[in-house]
């Protein structure tokens, strides 16, 4: 059987590279990776994909929905799945932030395995991104804490350990996260020094 031609439309180049590799490993041909800034009509007409996988939050989706692909002699609309697509798969896809379009008349059975790969990669990527965000937040929080401790050390003429204890006590007394207390101290000091 002919290898399936898949096109990816995603503005996140990191994610599209991961997805491309995964699809290739699974035996599919990725014929193009496009972003929403490309002239999709032109590119898609040229590469004639069987299936287009697109980031759910890509502004290109409305354009894709209006397109037709000229297969052989008759133009066929690109459709979002088909009438008898498995409902739970669509729901899962939307939750993972991935959408897809196929050329009308495309065999239903061939969609599912590709979608499974895409959904898994989008999920993985989201988890990575959350992890990164968490790390970044932790770093930010540490910086905030250090700054607040510095202010306390200056004003109370105490060492870092004591400054930390003051912060911790304020946090417990006010029933607030310690980093929130630190932020408050920084903003108040900033306002007073203005």
């Amino acid at each position, binding site marked *: 059987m002919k290898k399936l031609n898949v096109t990816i439309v995603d503005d996140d180049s990191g994610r599209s590279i991961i997805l491309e590799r995964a699809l290739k490993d699974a035996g599919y041909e990725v014929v193009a990776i496009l972003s929403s800034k490309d002239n999709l009509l032109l590119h898609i007409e040229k590469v004639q994909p069987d299936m287009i996988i697109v980031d759910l939050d*890509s502004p290109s989706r409305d354009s894709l*929905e209006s397109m037709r692909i000229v297969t052989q002699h008759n133009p066929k609309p690109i459709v979002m799945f088909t009438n008898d697509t498995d409902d739970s798969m669509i729901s899962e896809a939307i939750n993972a932030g991935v959408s897809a379009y196929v050329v009308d008349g495309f065999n239903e059975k061939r969609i599912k395995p590709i979608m499974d790969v895409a959904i898994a990669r989008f999920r993985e990527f989201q988890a990575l991104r959350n992890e990164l965000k968490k790390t970044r937040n932790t770093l930010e929080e540490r910086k905030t804490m250090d700054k607040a401790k510095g202010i306390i050390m200056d004003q109370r003429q105490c060492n870092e350990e004591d400054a930390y204890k003051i912060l911790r006590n304020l946090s417990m007394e006010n029933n607030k996260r310690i980093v929130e207390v630190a932020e408050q101290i920084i903003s108040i000091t900033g306002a007073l020094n203005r």
Partner: protein
Amino acid sequence: MSLETQQHDQSNLEKQQLNIGFVPLTDCATLAVAKEKGLFKKYGLDVNLSKEVSWANIRDKLAYGMLDCAQMLATMPITSTLGMGGWKKETVTSLVLGVNGNAVTISNGLYDELKKLNPEFDKQRPVAADTLKQLIELKKVNGEKPLTFAHVFPASTHNYFLRYWLASSGIDPDHDIQLSVIPPQQMVTNLEANIVDGFCVGEPWNQSAISNGTGHVLITSHEIWNNAPDKVLGMNKEWAYRNPNTHKAVVKALIEAAQWVDMHENRVETAEIVAGEKYINVPVDVILPSLTGKYKYHQDGEIVDLPDFNLFYKYAAAFPWHSHAAWYISQMIRWGDLPDSLDVKNIIKDIFWVDFHRQVCTEMGLDCPVINTKSEGHHLQQWELFSDNHSILMAADTFFNGDTFDFS
């Protein structure tokens, strides 16, 4: 004006935390104002407004429950219910979120070509597409490639308005030109790059093209057909059945917001709100012309008074008229997007919840139309809609070409 924000009883609400989707366009105004002015809160709702980049996203996230309700194109509850271009999902609306609000803008190059052909072609408004038709025929004879026009979504209000305007001058939108779909925020760039020759889109994108000198507005959607609905509040039918009190609370908050926005003195503040980062995220200067009704067709042209360019409440703008829905369906049939064998009357009755709208108005002590349909195209100026104990001031409902549309 300050708003009365004392909280209403919320004990009967089925759901208080809501996710409401919107697309960053000027006519998301009532949603933005209801949120920023505490009106959702007043009715016991904790609303997160979720900014969506595509109408397809609005449709899909609504259908699969990631959104409770959403700003939709007025045609979308019909397309979702009938499964046009996506899966079938019964969708309803009881509230119009804005009438008018779009325009047709063309590139400087195309404008110059039309001027050359007929220097007076846009002297009289509303401008018909007659000279455009001449130019298209000329291009055919000369073997030049066809013009490309863009709109925003396959079965959009914009698509049908554009087709209607073109076809009135004998242009076949399926064969004489190319029609494509481009996201609203990319319209101006595409016009500038000559990828498209013209488009039909909502604000602020026409005025944005005017302000940076990329194009000329030929006709507004208000001119094509006065006061037709463009955006509605859509929701799944099953959601509406499950959450009647929450549904009412949302509609009440939005009607109050619409009343506030439609007071002339609040339009500048409204523009400032929707221009913000959370909403459209553009300079307020490009929002102001349409919202304050000081509109420009050309960068170096005069300012034209168009007080009705964006309307939200005035002239019963929020009422989901069945005759409006019927006209859209008539256009869907005309262009082959729907078969002509449909039971239009019952479809509309199921989707456009006029009785629910009336019930909300009664509870709020507001006057509301007692009829579901009106004759379209017969009122050339303001008129009064009478019922037993009140009358409502209505606006004109003229089509630019003098057409009439009667649905009963």
